């Protein structure tokens, strides 16, 4: 699977504590397969919360990206309450694309006490790498 931002850059898969993400080494974006975000957040209750928070953005400045699975253009959506983050979602529900650090921002906003391990993992990745 190639990174939707950098052309011809194969993404690598990282697994930690039962969390699995596709990671691009050059732009540090993260691809989450369908259902992985829910898993990341743990409980089923959260997944409702997420879908409610997803808002489609009609007017955007960011260039549309293509889903790495079906290669069709993804739509832009906003996620989060106070500091909304714009992410890409495949229209065929293959998954979500987060630019560098976006996933960490979202989790920090959403973080219910439980899944600190996930957050710590993401912080490790983004604080260490430059």
């Amino acid at each position, binding site marked *: *699977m190639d990174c939707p931002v950098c052309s011809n850059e*194969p*993404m*690598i*898969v*990282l*697994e*930690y*504590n*039962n969390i*699995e993400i596709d*990671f691009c*080494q050059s732009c540090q974006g993260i691809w989450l397969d369908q259902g992985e975000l829910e*898993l990341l957040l743990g409980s089923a209750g959260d997944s409702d919360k997420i879908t409610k928070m997803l808002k489609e953005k009609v007017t955007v400045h960011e260039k549309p990206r293509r889903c790495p699975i079906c290669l069709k253009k993804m739509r832009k959506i906003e996620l989060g309450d106070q500091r909304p983050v714009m992410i890409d979602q495949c229209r065929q529900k293959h998954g979500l694309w987060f630019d560098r650090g976006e996933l960490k921002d979202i989790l920090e906003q959403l973080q219910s006490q439980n899944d600190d391990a996930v957050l710590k*993992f993401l912080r*490790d*990745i983004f604080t*260490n*790498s430059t």
Partner: protein
Amino acid sequence: MWEVIKANQRKSWVLFSLMGTVLILLGFVIGASVSPEGGLIGLIIALAIWIIMSFVSYFSGDSIMLRMSGAQLVNHNVHPQLFNIVEEMKIASGMKHMPKVYIIPQEAPNAFATGIHQDQCAVAVTAGLLSRLNRDELQGVIAHEMSHIMNRDVLFMSFAGTLLGSIAIISQVFLRGTYYSSFSSRRYRSSSRNNQGDGVMLIIALAVAILAPVLTQLLYFAISRKREYLADASAVRLTRYPQGLASALEKISSSKLDLTTATKITAPLYIANPLKQKGKKLSDLTSTHPPISERVKILRGMQQGVNLNDYQVSFNKVKGQPELLIPATALKDKDPLSLRQGSSKKKGPISPTQQAREIGDLIRRVNDFLFISCACGLTIKLPANYNRSQVQCPRCQKKYHVQKE
């Protein structure tokens, strides 16, 4: 064991001749209905169609089946346990050649064997099967598949399948042809040429064309089901552990998933029918596989021993009425073979997440991903097209060399 094969071959010839007779009859009456002297020509055309189809399936049947299922050839490193078990069964059965091992990257649990020639046979299992079964259960499934190869079921089923296919095609073409021509030609033909003899022949031909496919299909299904039982019996004789196959079958049948790459044509070759009949219960006559619950009951009923005779005894008990499943000559196989103790730990239901991870990893292994376990607890999985010479763990910054063969 070898007696079973011999008896199978004898029975196969009977069935072949029966199906062949239907084909010849079909060709003849269709030919005769077209013109009074056409019987022989029709017969020859029908045989020619079958011979061509047989050639195609004989020389490419394996690869077609494997390609249609999306199976990928794997080596020992991808799944050592699977590879070992196949080798164990090869030794147990005394087969000369090691079958090729394939994994089908799909979640539905299932398996099949191909191999018209014993020296190039193959077994294929799905990733979903591997993630669900423990060692004993997997051994049962592999033994079942290898029994299909040893009993020459693959060869037989593909020939019978082409016969079935030829008959279906000829009937279809004829029925459609008559349907369309009944509008056009009758109007222009003089009634004097359409004498009564032709009319009777046409009706006979129509009747045969309608009945022949149904008849041959029922024959085909009946034999296919018998061969499933036989493969179960031989499998148990190989592994000496009926419980393993029984619980594997239960796990396979409890899955609601359909194999997306299976078709009606390839379905009889799988260990369990890959196409779950949603909603409707098919009658026993038109099913390629015996009901799994029955197969499990027979296997679980084998308390005394595991030779072919023991299977027949348990089969009779479950079925209620005795039906000779295993040829009488093979039932002489009365050497007391004792059951073996199960040796692997129970593999209970695991969480859907974990199962998805296992299946995902297996599919990646099949696709030549490189797995690196970093000391910090992170696992890095590199795709086959990863083009740098080293990779840095994003978490702890440790660097790893990427070695590709």
